[in-house]
């Protein structure tokens, strides 16, 4: 199990366990975390699964594909550290990753 620490837009903090090989989106959904809509279930067409990844962790992630980088621009509240959680595949290297949830996904 890989530990994910998160903070909501209201500043509430929490953590959940993700399964290596699953996407961050699927793991968050499985853990019942609110605030990630993921309407398209990971098909990269909805832009409603945005998270902000803590600076320190950004370089540990595979860089976004061109398509993801473009989709992130269409989210409601994009930031330089925005990622689509359906495109982040969890692995042991990401144990302890810190993310923040946007104020809204749509």
């Amino acid at each position, binding site marked *: 199990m890989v530990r994910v620490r998160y903070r909501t837009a209201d500043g509430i903090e929490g953590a959940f366990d993700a399964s290596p090989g699953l996407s961050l989106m699927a793991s968050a959904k499985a853990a019942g975390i609110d605030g990630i809509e993921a*309407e398209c*279930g990971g098909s990269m*067409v*909805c*832009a*409603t699964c945005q998270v902000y990844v803590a600076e320190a962790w950004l370089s540990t992630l595979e860089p976004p594909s061109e398509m993801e980088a473009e989709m992130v*621009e269409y*989210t*409601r509240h994009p930031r330089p550290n925005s990622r689509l959680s359906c495109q982040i595949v969890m692995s042991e290297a990401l144990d302890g990753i810190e993310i923040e949830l946007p104020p809204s996904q*749509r």
Partner: protein
Amino acid sequence: MATLARVIPPNVRPEQVFDFDIYADPRIDDDVQGSYSAVLKAAPDIFWSPLNGGHWVVQRHDLIAEIVKNPTVFSAREMQIPRVENPPFFIPLSVDPPENVPYRHVLMPKFSPRAVSEMEPRMRAMAAEIVAEVADKGKCDFIHDVAARFPVSVFMEVMGLPLERLHDFRSIADTYFKARTSEQIQASSQQIFGIFNELLDYRRDNPGTDLLTHFLTVDMGEGRRLSHEEILAMCFVLFLGGMDTVTNVTGFSVQHLAGDPALQARLAADPSLAGKFAEEGLRMFGVIGTPRLVVKDFDDHGVAFRKGEMVLCALWQSGRDPAKLDDPDRFDIDRGAMPHYNFSTGPHLCLGHALARTEMRILVEEWIKRVPSFRAVEGAHHGFRIGTVIALESLPLEWTVA
């Protein structure tokens, strides 16, 4: 269509057969989605209806997601039940992944959550104007006078279509959705293409900031432009998807609201509840079913899907799945989660989901501001259509003008 011979292929087991005429089942009544839900309680999660050429129906939330997220087995390239000779071709709807992706990306700048939120003030002004036209009259047909006009106006603004054509557009879309034979479908598609050809010619000479101009100028990579045929195929699905759907879901939701004075009072006192109301309306009153063509044999959940068979995902059932929420046939804006796939999910998730939700929320807010208390005209017949699209034909309302 129920006059066609009943079809039960050998791969279908007797206990999987449940007769249901998706175009005219007599058990469906004025509470369209409610009676659907009631009738299908007796049917298996995935069943075979021998009517309309014979086809599968999938009626559970999680199973629907499995189907629409498995395009290598369940292709979107044909969507007619029964199958027709020359099925219409939509972009991106008829295109399976990965070929659909570049088209979704062309459309995204105008339909993304961000683009929609930027359009909100303009949409609110349009909604207020439409509501103002009826508010002092004390009565209206909510479908015709409000629910049809608003989403179509918003859509036409996005597309850059002249509002004078509103009436033409609606009646052509109506004809299209009522069409059953391939001749009827072809004829009404031709009319739709005719209108778009005319408008594209106009935008070629008079570029604006609208979607048609974007289609004409966008770079698809390495300088490739969209072909005229591709543009028409996109316009076609946008036209059909943006016309009727919002009208009907809003209509059914407000039909419910007309019978619930306590909910009207709550919304009037706190318009910020309109978003919850819209989402619960979406959950309760789905209006789209998505057909898929089985393109290779596939066995799952005890069902033998065979190549060439049609599958209807009855999306309106997805929000009424007792496995996903308590008392699913009750309208309750205080529910925490409102799980449903009335916008589908997966690669063909409705492009307009953010737009549609925002439209519904804004229209309800503007309506309740001006008409805080109203009721359905007693004894009036509303009328409905079923099929792969569910429609409410009228909604006569009345209220006391202050």
